[in-house]
């Protein structure tokens, strides 16, 4: 079995699962409880937060744990909109964001907010000129993803941040779910980024755990009201086993990140090189991209068909993002890049993790060759 769908989700690492089990059994008390077991759980939570902060190069008050990337993005977007509605109701994002971002914006739009969706060029990158002309007095939030989940394209986060330094009251939100461990995103006092969102199951951690970085001094209205956990920013009993094991996963993935990046890039380069020899294959991932994603398609063959054909060879890949693939929706990122609907429907996505090897890539290429030759005969 070859699993090449790591942008959808990753396999939980065994030591991470081990940590999850131990915490579930030994530190199950509620961190808000007064008794010793509760105190111990609170202290473990505190340790996790400190470690995550250190790993991300920020301070521990700037870390909030959530239930995942979707909650994180929703909170940052709606939390900003609600917090700042008296200052302005204009929001900016891009047309290729993950649905967790796009749909949050659309909901706000229906409720009366004014939203600018920045277009992207044929490589999937927004233009700074567009951003500059979109920012106005009423703008309170700019959301830009670091790495696109479908094509692996990388947005110019630093340049955007540099530009936004002229607008210190605008919240700059980066969806870094696909970036962590793959494309460095600089956080902290020197960075213009105000909020960054991560999700543990994308880096071999458990499902249902997210991390949000909120820069000191930046305020977000909470979405979940209740017992005042997470410094009153996100109520709900803390998912301690999830948080602790996610911390371990983050630690482990960052420890070998540069080595893993090199390995994944080598595999993707090998695949790109192979695909460039096939005249009926289009590669949609731009020249510069994250090391773990390649999006491409066989001309006139629906992505869905290729996915199932590869499955027969024991290979798991996706048609673009998992969130839209079951709904048979064509890739919104590709459409935004100006690719025709019919062509976009052919796209499949190979996404790697540190668990994959060059042998697997060679096996993939072998199988793909068989699949490709099969279709080539039909058409």
């Amino acid at each position, binding site marked *: 079995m070859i699993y090449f769908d790591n942008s959808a989700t990753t396999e939980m690492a065994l030591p991470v699962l081990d*940590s999850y089990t131990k915490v579930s059994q030994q530190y199950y008390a509620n961190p808000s409880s007064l008794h010793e077991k509760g105190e111990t759980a609170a202290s473990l939570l505190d*340790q996790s937060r400190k*470690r995550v902060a250190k790993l991300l190069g920020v301070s521990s008050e700037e870390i909030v744990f959530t239930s995942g990337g979707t909650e994180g993005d929703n909170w940052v977007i709606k939390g900003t909109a609600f917090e700042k509605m008296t200052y302005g109701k204009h929001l900016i994002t891009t047309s290729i964001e993950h649905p967790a971002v796009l749909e949050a914006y659309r909901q706000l739009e229906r409720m009366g907010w004014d939203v600018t969706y920045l277009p992207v060029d044929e490589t999937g990158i927004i233009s700074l000129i567009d951003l500059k002309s979109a920012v106005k007095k009423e703008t309170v939030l700019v959301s830009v993803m670091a790495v696109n989940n479908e094509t692996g394209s990388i947005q110019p986060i630093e340049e955007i941040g540099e530009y936004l330094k002229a607008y210190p009251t605008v919240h700059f939100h980066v969806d870094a779910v696909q970036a962590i461990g793959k494309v460095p995103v600089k956080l902290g006092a020197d960075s213009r980024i105000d909020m960054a969102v991560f999700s543990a199951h994308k880096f071999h951690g458990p499902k249902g755990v997210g991390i949000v970085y909120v820069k000191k001094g930046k305020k977000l209205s909470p979405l979940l009201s209740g017992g005042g956990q997470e410094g009153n920013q996100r109520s709900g009993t803390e998912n301690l086993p999830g948080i*602790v*094991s996610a911390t371990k996963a983050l630690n482990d993935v960052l420890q070998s990140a540069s080595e893993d990046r090199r390995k994944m890039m080598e595999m993707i380069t090998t695949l790109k090189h192979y695909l460039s020899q096939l005249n009926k294959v289009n590669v949609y991932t731009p020249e510069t991209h994250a090391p773990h994603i390649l999006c491409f398609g066989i001309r006139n063959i629906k992505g869905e068909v290729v996915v199932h054909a590869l499955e027969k060879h024991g290979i798991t890949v996706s048609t673009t993002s998992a969130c839209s693939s079951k709904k048979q929706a064509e890739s919104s990122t590709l459409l935004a890049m100006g690719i025709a609907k019919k062509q976009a429907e052919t796209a499949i996505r190979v996404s790697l993790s540190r668990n994959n090897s060059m042998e697997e890539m060679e096996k993939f290429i072998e199988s793909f060759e068989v699949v490709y030759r099969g279709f080539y005969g039909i058409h």
Partner: protein
Amino acid sequence: MITEVMARYGELSTKGKNRKLFIKQLGKNVEEALSAYSNLIIKAHRDRLHIELNGEPYEEVLERLKTIFGIQTISPVIKVEKTIEQASKAAISLMEETHQPGQTFKITARRADHDWDYETNEVNRIIGQAVTEAFPGIKVKMKNPDNNIRVEIRLDGIYLSSNSIKGAGGLPSGTSGKGMLMMSGGIDSPVAGYYALKRGLELEAVHFHSPPYTSPQALQKAKDLTEKLVRYSRPTTFIEVPFTEIQETIKKYVPQGYVMTITRRMMLRITDQLREKRNGLAIINGESLGQVASQTLESMAVINEVTTTPILRPLITTDKNDIITVAQNIDTFELSVLPYEDCCTIFSPPKPRTKPKLAHVLETEGKLDVEGMVQRAVDGIKVERIQLNQTQEAKQKAIFEDLF
């Protein structure tokens, strides 16, 4: 790159014939504080302390030195061979440690070795030029430069040091004798302890524990607060006094208005006995005039009546807000405000007397077995040595390690 750290003594330089003793104690304190770094060579000279790093991490050593009393200033030092090129290079790397764009600098050379190839002014000029080239746009300023790089040419090499970093000041811990700190767990007592340490006292912390009315967490908190003070001194003795019997007895037999006064008198009696047994010279507490009922002059007089031992009250005229600021600076505030009941808050009557009468107190105490209770408490103490990094947090960190 930094090869040495130099620390200058503070006011102890003026202490006449005791001075040797002070320097020796400070050297001992520094050695103890830095004992984890086995490659260091520590030399206490007449007017300054030299610490050769021998590869030990400069930043960590510096952080630790900053909390040791008796040190006025600290300077990073680079020792190089006696060539002007080496000296220039070292000056540049010292500047890299601290220089910010737009800042000014100056080179101050001094020659102890008068036979060296270059004269003082030449040294200033050559090294100054090297720095100017390394930091384009940097300006020289003779009066109050942001960075003053001192270059000392000695027989065995050239020593370069940059601006001094402020030390903790005060007197070396242990040079003023030993005192007993009444450590409640509130905001004030650790701050009082800090000030006592700063004047050279060695402390033993005395904490009154009344299980089950006070929790294990409250006890741990007092220990953790003591650990915070260890950074400014040395491993410290923590004495846990069993206080339940006394509090229950007082609650039962003492009229409400006098519960607080008599409780405090009992605490002071016990602390004073412990002091005597353990060769202490004073008692230190965190009282601040008028803060609570026990801290009016009338109350203090009646409570103090049980002993003639000097009671040091470093915070007596300090405002609460100023105390909090110090507590934050010494990192005890967050611990202090953790919400655990301590022995002062349980059984505390709604309206304690702010002007207790000694005659009433003596009459009430006459009905109690004061001596017996004090004796049992003193006999029942638990003594523990508190070392650095032994807080609950540090211990749990070790237990949690395999989860991460």
